[in-house]
């Protein structure tokens, strides 16, 4: 027990990585065994991450130095040279959400991907994405962050192009990888700038000695824009609709969490690394502007889409805007203690709560879209109709996801949105009004999807359509259950997960103190 917690950070990354490497060998023994292997390994990872998170939430930051003679020896001889993994409440929250979505998606794809070739690579890459996400959120080292970012874009880029029979997936993947590679190289350039000045790579140690020179500011700009690119904020969002639209449905649901992991990196850099900078509120304002643009442009473009997955991809952009807005408001007032305690903290909590909620309802919506595609074989909303007759359970799940993304009570989307609305209103009423307007437009565009896909008389061409298989229903059902649970008991989620995470973001000294 204590062994797993002690080695938790390393095990959480290593177990899915090892499983990914072994998947091609195991799939020689048969398809069923391979799927069982992938699901079991992800479940084991989830157990490790849950145990680790419980420990982190109760007893504070946990560090792990790879290859050291004792795990907590991060600075041999007083110099932080080792590769360090550092897990605080914020990382633990992101780790939990990444692994849970990956596990559910894996269960879902045991049915959904059955008819395709090359599944050993699919599962290997899925496990590798999980490992890279956990690495990105658990790492305490800037260069490692770059490595995991590249690992993430390589493995997810390969999965975006999984359908090789057509040209569009390859094109989307090409754009995705070019964009990710350019962004990641800018991260590396920023790491070079920081290393050249301080001879340090560890985030905690760097934050302790940062002087905020001009070069540091260039590094900050490079980091912030690269991570904003990876999380898909307008005007850097164009790859999102291509990649989300053309990837296989399970991969799309994972890609949502992948963007959230980049969002984590953005928050980690701007709060922990640069939190003490005098002009950090400029970055907060930049986040607010990016957030408002993402919200509005994302939702208006979503309304005109005809392809169900591209529509949902634009909604993902729009919802990312809420998180950027919430956390950006917190960052903009970080120097002002009174404002921070009266509404800044709530804004950050709302933004982080929205990260969890978004991963859940967006995952559910993409999985229901997958159920529609699985049975009808089309993504075009103009060709769909009357599916509620044949797929009642999927329809229910879709309604839950739809009401949640539109921010209707009592679902979880509303809980986080009301925290954002009320705290942002105290900061600037106009921003809050835009956020509410975007929510209305979100509902409008999902009503359109609901009407054209599910309502109406039964269509002749879909008379053989049945409910989807059990494995897919289980994955969707678990997500729907947690949406309702988080919707009905938001205070417990905020108290146990979100508030520690927000405090971990704000309390920079805690993160720094463990390293030096």
């Amino acid at each position, binding site marked *: 027990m204590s062994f797993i917690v002690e080695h938790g950070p390393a095990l959480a990354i290593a177990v899915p990585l090892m499983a990914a490497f072994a998947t091609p060998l195991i799939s020689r023994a048969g398809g069923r065994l391979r799927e069982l292997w992938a699901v079991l390994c992800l479940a084991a990872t989830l157990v490790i991450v849950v145990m680790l998170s419980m420990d982190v939430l109760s007893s504070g930051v946990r560090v792990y130095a790879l290859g050291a003679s004792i795990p907590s020896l991060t600075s041999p001889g007083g110099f932080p*040279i080792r590769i360090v993994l550092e897990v605080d409440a914020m990382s633990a929250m992101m780790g939990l959400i990444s692994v849970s979505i990956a596990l559910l998606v894996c269960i879902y794809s045991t049915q959904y991907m059955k008819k395709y070739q090359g599944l050993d690579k699919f599962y290997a890459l899925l496990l590798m994405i999980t490992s890279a996400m956990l690495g990105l959120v658990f790492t305490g080292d800037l*260069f490692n962050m*770059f*490595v995991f970012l*590249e*690992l993430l*874009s*390589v493995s997810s*880029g*390969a999965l975006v*192009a999984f359908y*090789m029979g*057509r*040209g*569009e997936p*390859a*094109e*989307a*993947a*090409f*754009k995705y*990888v*070019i964009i990710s*590679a*350019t962004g990641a*190289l800018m991260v*590396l*350039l920023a*790491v*070079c700038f920081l*290393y*050249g000045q301080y*001879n340090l*790579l560890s985030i905690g140690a760097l934050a302790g000695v940062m002087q905020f020179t001009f*070069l540091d500011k260039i590094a900050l700009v490079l980091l912030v824009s690269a991570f904003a690119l990876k999380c898909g904020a307008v005007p850097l969002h164009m790859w999102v*609709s*291509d990649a989300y*639209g*053309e990837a296989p449905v399970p991969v799309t649901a994972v890609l949502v969490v992948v963007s959230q992991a980049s969002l984590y990196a953005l928050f980690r850099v701007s709060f922990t690394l640069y939190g003490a900078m005098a002009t950090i509120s400029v970055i907060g304002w930049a986040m607010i502007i990016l957030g408002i643009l993402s919200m509005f442009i994302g939702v208006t*473009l979503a309304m*005109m*889409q005809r392809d169900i997955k*591209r529509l949902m991809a634009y909604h993902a952009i729009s919802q990312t805007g809420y998180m950027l807005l919430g956390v950006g408001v917190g960052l903009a007032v970080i120097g002002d203690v009174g404002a921070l305690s009266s509404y800044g903290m709530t804004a950050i909590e709302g933004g982080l709560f929205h990260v969890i909620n978004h991963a859940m309802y967006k995952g559910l919506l993409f999985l229901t879209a997958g159920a529609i595609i699985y049975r009808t074989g089309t993504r075009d909303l103009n060709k769909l109709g009357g599916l509620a007759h044949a797929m009642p359970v999927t329809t229910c799940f879709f309604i839950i996801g739809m009401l949640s993304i539109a921010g209707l009570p009592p679902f979880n989307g509303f809980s986080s949105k009301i925290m954002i609305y009320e705290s942002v209103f105290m900061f600037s009423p106009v921003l809050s009004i835009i956020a509410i307007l975007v929510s209305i437009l979100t509902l409008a565009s999902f009503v359109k999807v609901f009407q054209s896909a599910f309502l109406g008389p039964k269509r002749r061409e879909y008379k053989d359509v049945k409910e989807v298989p059990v494995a897919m229903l289980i994955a969707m059902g678990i997500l729907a259950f947690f949406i309702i649970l988080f919707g009905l008991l938001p205070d417990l989620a905020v108290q146990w997960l979100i508030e520690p995470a927000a405090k971990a973001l704000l309390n920079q000294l805690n993160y720094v103190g463990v390293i030096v």
Partner: protein
Amino acid sequence: MISLPFLAVMVIISIGLSAVIFRRNLVKIVMGTSIIASAINLFLVSLGYREGGVAPIFTGAPRLEMVLPTPQALTLTSIVIDLAVTAMMLSFAIIIYRHYGSLDSRKRRLRE
């Protein structure tokens, strides 16, 4: 701080970025990202260089001044990653060429 290697690195990065932005051929775009990666590798190596330093593998070194080992490890890692990414982008370019018969980035298919 500003010296010749750093200026050279900035110039090469600009060349790479302009190739990615202004070239229409997909292979040339891939070359652009490779050029950026090489420039950053050059930057890393020149960061770790110390005038007159020795290789950091001696136990009884003749002088104490050593070239920093960490940037070299970082450079190796980044070369490996760059190799994987480049191979992947080129594979995608091959698939795109097979399906569309053209490598022009402006002959676009996905939009809006």
